[in-house]
Structures are given as structure tokens and as C-alpha cells.
């Protein structure tokens, strides 16, 4: 979806700006460009990531501008979550270590697309009727035979 909505143009613009293609690194060793397949953010499309932090709804101009700001030594604020950190720090997080910077989980409220449906529901006063958290859980008598073994038609979740 990113590609169709302008992501390919943004990629081309950044590629031209940096003078590198997919999986290539600039001569100064500072930027490696990658053409991502899908980043599970179609409602925010097109998106780009820097060191795995998301920049939502970028067009070609915005993408190049973000790269320019990095080149000038500033740290453009990602759209969700934490501020940019080094690639090594992100690698540590992916390896399962806790991000030791304070408040990295707290920054950034959910964006408009995330809340589109629930805000609409709220604005027209929709809630699901009949919800009673004290509804009893029906009793089941303990079974004598063990549960049935896996059947052949069980399908994998994908």
C-alpha cells in the first residue's frame, strides 16, 4: 500500500538524494538505504523508518527533508514512541534487552488512523449493549475420556 500511495516516489527521492540504491551504503558510511517490503502500517502509508523508528505519512519531500535534517546533525522526532537512538542500541533492544532510556515507552499518543473507528463510535454514542461483566461462566462437569487428539483438518493460522 505504501508503494501505491507514494512510497515508491519517496524511496526514489531519498535514493537520488543519497546517491545509493537498495542495500547500499553512502561513501561516508553514515546511511544505508533499504527498500522495505511491508512495515504493517498501511493505514499510515507511506511510512519510512530510521533505525526502526517510524515516520508516518511521508511523501517524497518529507522523506528527503528528514534525511537532510539527519545530515545536518539534528534528530528528527519519529511519529511513534521513542526518540532516535543509535543502531547499536536498537540491536540490543531487538536482542531482548530493555531500553534503558527513560520514558521511551511513553512518548507519542496513538495516531489518527489508529483511533479513527473508536473515535467515530464515541462521537455517535455507540457501545455494544448487553455487556455484563458478572455474567456467570457456565459449569462443565469433568469429562471421563481425554480430549480428542488433533484432527487432520486443523489449519495453520497465517
Amino acid at each position, binding site marked *: 500500500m505504501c508503494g501505491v500511495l507514494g512510497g515508491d516516489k519517496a524511496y526514489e527521492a531519498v535514493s537520488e538524494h543519497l546517491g545509493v540504491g537498495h542495500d547500499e551504503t553512502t561513501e561516508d558510511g553514515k546511511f544505508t538505504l533499504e527498500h522495505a517490503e511491508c512495515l504493517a502500517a498501511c*493505514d499510515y502509508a507511506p511510512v519510512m523508518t530510521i533505525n526502526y523508528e517510524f515516520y508516518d505519512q511521508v511523501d517524497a519531500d518529507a522523506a528527503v527533508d528528514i534525511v537532510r535534517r539527519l545530515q545536518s546533525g539534528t534528530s528528527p522526532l519519529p511519529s511513534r514512541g521513542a526518540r532516535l537512538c543509535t543502531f547499536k542500541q536498537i540491536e540490543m533492544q531487538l*536482542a531482548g534487552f530493555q531500553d534503558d532510556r527513560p520514558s521511551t515507552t511513553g512518548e507519542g499518543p496513538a495516531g489518527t488512523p489508529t483511533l479513527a473507528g473508536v473515535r467515530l*463510535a464515541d462521537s*455517535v454514542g455507540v457501545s455494544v449493549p448487553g455487556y*455484563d461483566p458478572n455474567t456467570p461462566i457456565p459449569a462443565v462437569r469433568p469429562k471421563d475420556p481425554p480430549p480428542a487428539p488433533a484432527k487432520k483438518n486443523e489449519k*495453520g493460522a497465517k
Partner: protein
Amino acid sequence: MSAISVAQDVLTPVLTKRWLTSDAWTIDTYELLDGYRGLRKAFTATPDELIQLVKDSGLRGRGGAGFPTGLKWSFIPQGDGKPHYLVVNADEGEPGTCKDVPLMMADPHSLIEGIIITCYAIRSNFAAIYIRGEVVHAIRRVQNAVREAYAKGYLGKNILGKGFDLDVVVHAGAGAYICGEETALLDSLEGYRGQPRLKPPFPATNGLYSSPTVVNNVETIASVPFIVLGGADWWKSMGTEKSPGPKIYSISGRVNRPGQYECGLGTTLRQLIELAGGMKEGHQLKFWTPGGSSTPMLTAEHLDVPLDFEGAAAAGSMLGTTAVMLQRPGRPGLRGLPVH
């Protein structure tokens, strides 16, 4: 047909309701919003009663295949002396799909609570959440939720004094699309290269470390506390007879307000477009996919197809992950994606 009347007809804010509260991802706020109440209630029932409850609710897997969740749980052999595992598939990678990441960002504790209830039901003392590595922000939120849950005694030894132990590990994937397939995911989790296994045997008997394993999608597991609280009949008051319950539809493409819309299963594209503020000006619907890019394309002929597991299949497609992507007729029309 106005947007308001459609909204009143089809929207069912259940899993997404807490998202409105901006810090619902913290455990203190989560607890104020009925959080971990489902767990306390679940502990008053037996594991078999919970499996039966989820069977009765008709909950079907939200990862795309639509397999009945309670049935899957009941396949786990009991009293076999082997460890049992729950693996949560959070490797959201089917293009178009973008519902699990916002859920893990906005309401990660609903996933943790669902995990604890599920593990109690299938008699598992270990669960892994396999999250795709590209979404570090969501990984941080879920890791934070796990830490908070440990600190409050919802995870670890003797949870809530009920004698039930559970450890949860958050695992980051390494960027392979195939690892969204459950057996490739299991291989990856074990430290091998992620490649699908031959089936049978199925994960229910030979899953993680060749032990009985339930693999469920994030949205499936996050539904469980609501079913425990509201009951099977309430759950079935939403959606259709064979595909009950609410579902997060992810609408992207040429609409005015792309985003997440939680509706009863069986909602039509015509209704979804209305919710999303209509097609963008100057854009006409040419084709669309109902559930990610691997589901066969549909056209404007199919605007009134009920988008549940049966309806999408009857139209020659698949419900998939209800990642609804709308495309316009364009200069390239159909275009190839660069493959590297």
C-alpha cells in the same frame, strides 16, 4: 445511508474501546478500566470450563485462517506429562494488515491478560510472544506490560495466590515474512531458520520443542478476557452466526479516513467505505482485497458481500486478516512490486 446511521449499525467498540484512553497501556490505568478483572473471574472457573466458554462463544482465529479457537485449545492433550506452550503470533506481516501493532501499542495488557487466561485453560506455564522485529515501538510497549504484570503478581509464581505459574517471553523476529506461518514461527523461536514444517504432526501435539502448543494471533488472545467477562451469548450478539464477534477491520488506500474500524463480522465494504469517510475525491474503486494481499482481489461488484469467513469465501476470496485495501484505477493499474 449516512455515516452516522452506518456507524450506529455496524461499529462494535470492544477490543478498541480502551484505545481512547491515552495511557491505557500502563497497568494502573488498565486496571481502572476493568483490566485483569477477566483473569480474576477466570480463576473462579476450571480450565475445562474456560475452554468450553470459548467454544460456546464461537471465537475463530483472527490471524486469517478462522479456525475455531476453543476447538484448537481442546486439541492440547491433557495429563500427558509434557510441558504445554502458548505462542502468540504477533509477526504481523501480511501486506495490508495493521491491526495487531496498534493493539499492542494502545492496549498491551489486554494481550497479557488473554495470555494468562489461555495458559490457565490449556495448562501451560510458558508463553512466548513473537513480534516482528520491524516494530520496535510495539515491542517496547509489550515488554513494558510484561514487566508491569510481573511486578504486580499477574505473572511469575503463584499468580494471585491461585497456585498457577506462568512466564512470558517477548521475542523479536528478524524480518522474515514466512515466520508469520505458525510452524516457521516455531522453528524461528527455537533458534532455527524459519521454514514451514510438514504437517502433520500439528502444533497441538508437536509444536514448540515438540511439545503440545497453541499458536494464536494477537487479536484472538486479546478477545479472550472480553469473552470471559461478557459471556458467550453477549459475544455472539455481534457478528454473524458462523463468524461471531467483533473484528478490527483495517482500511487502507484511497479513502478519506484510513484506519482501524472495529465492527461486527459480516460488515460490507460499502459500509466500511462509509465509515472511512468515502472514497477520496476523484478516486473510483477499481479493485480491493478483503484480508491482505494474499487474498484474491474483489471488485466493485462485491460491495455488499458480508465480510465474514463464509461471505468472503463465497465471493471467491478469503477473509484473511480483514486488512481491506482499496485501489483505484491508475496509470499503472496493476503494478509490480520491486523484489530484492
